[in-house]
């Protein structure tokens, strides 16, 4: 549909072969204007990215200068005393994103498998659209629903149960024990997981469809079952693209703001329990930036944004590079 343009951007580019050779002479100054004008707009896109990175680095310089490397390792976040450390938001961002991936990756691959192999033809379109609609819902709606519906549901039905069962296990027990309040890192991770499902599923479906039918038919002719086809033909063939899709989902999860802000609880306490409130980089900025009353406070939040931007840039670049191979393959087969 296109809400997944961001996902599609990472997969297949179709188009005719090149005709970018310059037009015949005689266009005169209008041609030059047109060409340079469009080139200027293209440069602008490039400068946008550089500008964002540079302005975040510049805005955060006070925090980086004041705290140095401690900014990354300190868990203290005390606006009154003017001490800021990014460990809690960084930890929360990573933990919620990992929870999101644990949920979204298997589900997305299941959906892609369903849409390419299992569902009858007439069902593929509507179900595909429905899954894509998940990406169309604005993140603020996810957040409201998370706060008013999902969090109370978790607090009442799921978290007490988690406390009694997994919460008592050794090793991973502490992760799942805590007050059942429904607000915290686990709920934020689950909501994030739902939000990134359509992105991973859309890419996975596209790359599954790009597997040459010859090798699929060969596997079927050898008597492969669905599982054998998926695990020995489809997944190995599309491995790098699937990893790319996962990184794309991760990139989205890391930067998602509103949905997380509603349900994570905005607490700067480091807690081993996933049921306890935490914070993420984006949520901390959204919650605190307008209240930041000192230059150092503001600078610390911008420094957080700089970290977030650098991390997502790296993750999304990896995603793009991993998907490039698939792009070439499907470009060749068409």
């Amino acid at each position, binding site marked *: 549909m*296109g809400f997944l343009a961001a996902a599609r951007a990472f997969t297949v580019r179709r188009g005719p072969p090149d005709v970018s050779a310059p037009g015949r002479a005689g266009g005169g100054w209008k041609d030059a204007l047109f060409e340079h004008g469009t080139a200027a707009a293209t*440069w602008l*896109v490039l400068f946008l*990215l550089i500008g964002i990175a540079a302005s975040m680095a510049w805005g955060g310089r006070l925090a980086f200068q004041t705290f140095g490397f401690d900014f990354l390792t300190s868990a203290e976040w005390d606006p009154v005393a003017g001490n800021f450390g990014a460990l809690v938001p960084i930890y929360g961002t990573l933990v919620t994103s990992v929870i999101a991936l644990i949920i979204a990756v298997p589900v997305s691959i299941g959906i892609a498998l369903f849409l390419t192999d*299992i569902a009858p033809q007439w069902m593929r379109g509507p179900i595909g659209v429905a899954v894509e609609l998940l990406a169309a*819902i604005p*993140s603020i709606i996810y957040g409201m*629903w998370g706060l008013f519906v999902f969090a109370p549901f978790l607090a009442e039905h799921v978290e007490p149960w988690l406390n009694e069962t997994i919460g008592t296990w050794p090793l991973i027990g502490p992760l799942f024990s805590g007050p059942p309040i429904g607000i915290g890192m686990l709920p934020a991770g689950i909501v994030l997981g739902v939000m990134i499902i359509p992105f991973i599923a859309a890419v996975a479906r596209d790359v599954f469809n790009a597997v040459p039918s010859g090798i699929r038919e060969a596997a079927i002719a050898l008597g492969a079952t669905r599982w054998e086809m998926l695990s020995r033909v489809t997944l190995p063939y599309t491995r790098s693209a699937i990893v790319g899709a996962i990184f794309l989902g991760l990139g989205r999860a890391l930067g998602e703001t509103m949905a997380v802000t*509603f349900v994570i609880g905005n607490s700067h306490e480091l807690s081993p329990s996933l049921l306890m409130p935490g914070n993420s980089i984006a949520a901390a900025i959204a919650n605190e930036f307008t209240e930041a009353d000192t230059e150092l406070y503001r600078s610390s939040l911008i420094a957080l944004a700089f970290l977030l931007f650098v991390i997502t840039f790296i993750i999304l670049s990896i995603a793009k590079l991993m998907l490039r191979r698939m792009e070439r393959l499907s470009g060749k087969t068409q």
Partner: protein
Amino acid sequence: MNTVLLRRRIIDILTLVFAMAATAFGLFWLVWILFTTFVQGLQALNLDLFTEMTPPPGGEGGLLNAFYGSAMMILLAVLIGTPIGIAAGTYLAEHGRNTKLASTVRFINDILLSAPSIVIGLFVYELAVRTIGHFSGYAGALALAIILIPIIVRTSEESLRLVPNQMREAGFALGLPRWKLTSQIIYKSAMSGLVTGILLGLARISGETAPLLFTALNNQFWNPDLSGPMANVPVVIFQYAMSPYDSWHALAWAGALVLTVFVLTLGLLVRFLARKRSSR
């Protein structure tokens, strides 16, 4: 039946069940979220929503100023973002298709598409709020435009590339200069794709909240002036939902319903247009 065959068959069935369960799981959330939004939103929906201003804490009112502010900022963002996006898309698809700049920008653009929108909000804060000294609707529109541009670049490049090369060759054969060819022939034949891209971008920026938090901020009162802080639907929903007042919660749900219906309608329209195009 021998055991190996039996095991393979069981695993096969488990795979089938897993794929169906995964799909049901995905759809389950969609239904749950939409159901909640509709039930809560319809309860709170009334005519005041479109005729009254946002109320003080705990009071009754509507979202007129927020709708107006959102509409103005989105309109301005589209006016800024569309020409720039289409121009860059034109460069990528036509003039500079194989240049180093084009391949770099394609890469960068795809990353900007997924970049965290809160960072873009902070960027515009640094650029247009801190320098001027106060929050403004213009800053909000600028932030939305920056989010819109990569979407338009991407969709316009794709739809321009779908124009058959024979079209360009025919144009050159007639002796058309390049600018005339592009603006009068290529754009025309790619029109539905370009429009789809704009609608898509419109749907995306309508729901954006994070970039408006520190740019347009919010405003309880009617303010037609874009140079001051401006109310807008997503930020009002955020603020009201986080508040302790029931009447504000109800308004937030009503706003959420209107926003969701608007965005989903646009989304389905885009889908419909895209299908019509591909079947032609």
